[in-house]
């Protein structure tokens, strides 16, 4: 299997009045075709920024992104435009990601019009209807406006728009977090079906661990712009090594009465992502932190086969 997307030492810094904000710092991973990589982490850890950098909505500060073997960084505008056909994004908020002045069919037709995929208006109309059918929208909604529809239907429009150009890679930026639970399931199933049918590759950004467990093949845990742990989903839920991952997973509610939950409560301040100090970024909240953690940044190491952790003391904390 070949890697569709290869990311090497990707960095994205933002200039702020108080200094450089390290939103994504030194992230590397491979993503194979047809797979789903879940990205989890708390608010502000750089998940969404990562997704936007990958599809070139934001310019990377440093690093390399190989899409089907071609380096995306440093490409000219024209090349990026060509590439965008293959990389799309589904947004978190189905209320602000659709232009309120465009009808459903106009929204879905937009990418088709930009890339002049269809030769005639009839063909365009046909293609839009086809897309609406694929995502489960009835034909009569074609001339409705987004505000007339509920969140689930709006998200379906967003998915149809993302699918319009037959992309290979889709960044899903918390696509279900704005929906209620029953609709979440519908949308997730739709996305999984589409993946199976079309061999799509997803980067699934979320803070909902149950969702990510359901949909992802691999999981990447992020903390303040750093990757702290990455491995297969099943393996991660069975065995996890980084102290932050442990704390994060212990927060998943267990729907069973009588089970004693052992939650790991994190204490201490979240260190600032602006001009971060050297050392492990999690150190200020980590119960195992030692002196070395405050001076030297841990690198991502392969602890077990295909299981990467960035922690100096993985071996002493865990029984491997």
């Amino acid at each position: 299997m070949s890697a569709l997307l290869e990311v090497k030492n990707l960095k994205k810094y933002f200039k702020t009045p108080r200094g450089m904000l390290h939103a994504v710092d030194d992230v590397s991973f491979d993503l194979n075709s047809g797979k789903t990589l879940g990205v989890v982490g708390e608010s502000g850890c750089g998940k969404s920024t990562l997704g936007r950098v990958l599809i070139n909505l934001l310019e990377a500060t440093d690093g390399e992104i190989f899409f089907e073997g071609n380096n995306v960084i440093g490409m000219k505008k024209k090349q990026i435009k060509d590439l965008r056909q293959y990389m799309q994004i589904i947004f978190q908020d189905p209320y602000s990601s659709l232009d309120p002045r465009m009808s459903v069919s106009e929204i879905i037709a937009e990418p088709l019009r930009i890339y002049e995929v269809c030769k005639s208006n009839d063909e365009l109309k046909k293609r839009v209807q086809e897309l609406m059918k694929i995502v489960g929208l009835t034909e009569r909604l074609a001339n409705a406006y987004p505000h007339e529809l509920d969140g689930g239907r709006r998200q379906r429009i967003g998915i149809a728009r993302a699918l319009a150009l037959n992309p290979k890679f889709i960044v899903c930026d918390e696509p279900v977090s704005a929906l209620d639970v029953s609709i979440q399931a519908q949308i997730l199933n739709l996305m999984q079906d589409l993946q199976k049918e079309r061999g799509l590759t997803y980067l699934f950004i979320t803070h909902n661990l149950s969702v990510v467990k359901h949909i992802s093949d691999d999981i990447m845990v992020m903390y303040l712009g750093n990757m702290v742990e990455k491995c297969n989903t099943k393996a991660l839920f069975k065995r996890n090594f980084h102290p932050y991952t442990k704390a994060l997973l212990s927060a998943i509610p267990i729907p069973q009465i009588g089970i004693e939950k052992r939650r790991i409560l994190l204490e201490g301040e979240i260190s600032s992502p602006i001009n971060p100090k050297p050392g492990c970024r999690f150190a200020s909240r980590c119960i195992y932190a030692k002196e070395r953690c405050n001076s030297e940044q841990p690198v991502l190491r392969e602890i077990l086969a295909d299981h990467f952790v960035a922690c100096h003391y993985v071996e002493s904390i865990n029984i491997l």
Partner: protein
Amino acid sequence: MKIVEKTTKLALNFNTKKTGQGYDVWMRFKKNRLALVGMFIVGLLLLMAVLAPVVAPYKFDLQDLLSTSQKPSLKHLFGTDNLGRDIFSRIVYGSRISLFVGFVAAAIGTLVGGALGSIAGYYGDKIDTIIMRAIDIMMAIPAMVLAIAICAALGPGLLNTMIAVGISTVPRYARVVRGAVLTVKEQEFIEASRACGGNDFHIILKHITPNCLAPIIVQASLGVADAILAAASMSFIGLGIQPPVPEWGAMLSAGRGYIRDNPHMVLFPGLAIMMTIYGLNLLGDGLRDALDPKLKR
């Protein structure tokens, strides 16, 4: 039976027939009675301006020195002024000048201000700072003084009045448009459009402009009214339209001295200005509502 009716109504709401956006806007506009009144007033004025020679019973500069300062009568519908000219005819002809000046000046303001404001708002950063500080400097000078200065430099006349009034309103439009662009620019659908391959031009044209249209239209409809007033003021101090061309503001100021004995000399030009502005405002409000599909009932 009722349920059947309701469902058919619902089905009709989701009209699957392809209808243009202009048609949608008109359907919504039609439901607003006040807006229709506004459109009627503005339409009437436009008709009057176009058909002035047919509507007016006298020539606008015909002086009848035997019947000066007459009160309204059947012969002179709105009376005559101190030189014996028929006020009704002058108002009819004056609508040509006033509407023309108003629309052209507002158009100059909207286009120049709108372009500057949207560039500043969309690109932000340095370009924004440069443009907006220049606008601030213009704003520091009162619009009227600015217009007078421009007019004094270019010389009086119809075209120069329009340019002067137009330029003096540029800062207002620029600010309104910039503010509107800033709020729209941050929305996710702009990012979505970029992800779909849209370039700056496409995004400004297809997403930002339609979403900023409401405040621009309201501002422009008020702007026409303001421009009419500003042009009238310019004529009043002798820098605007030169006599004997009839202009409502000039008529108003000319009649000012006779307000005690002959109030009709100022009443009718004043009413004409008022009705025009009222009509334009109603039309502007109606358009704003009609252009917003969220208000679709």
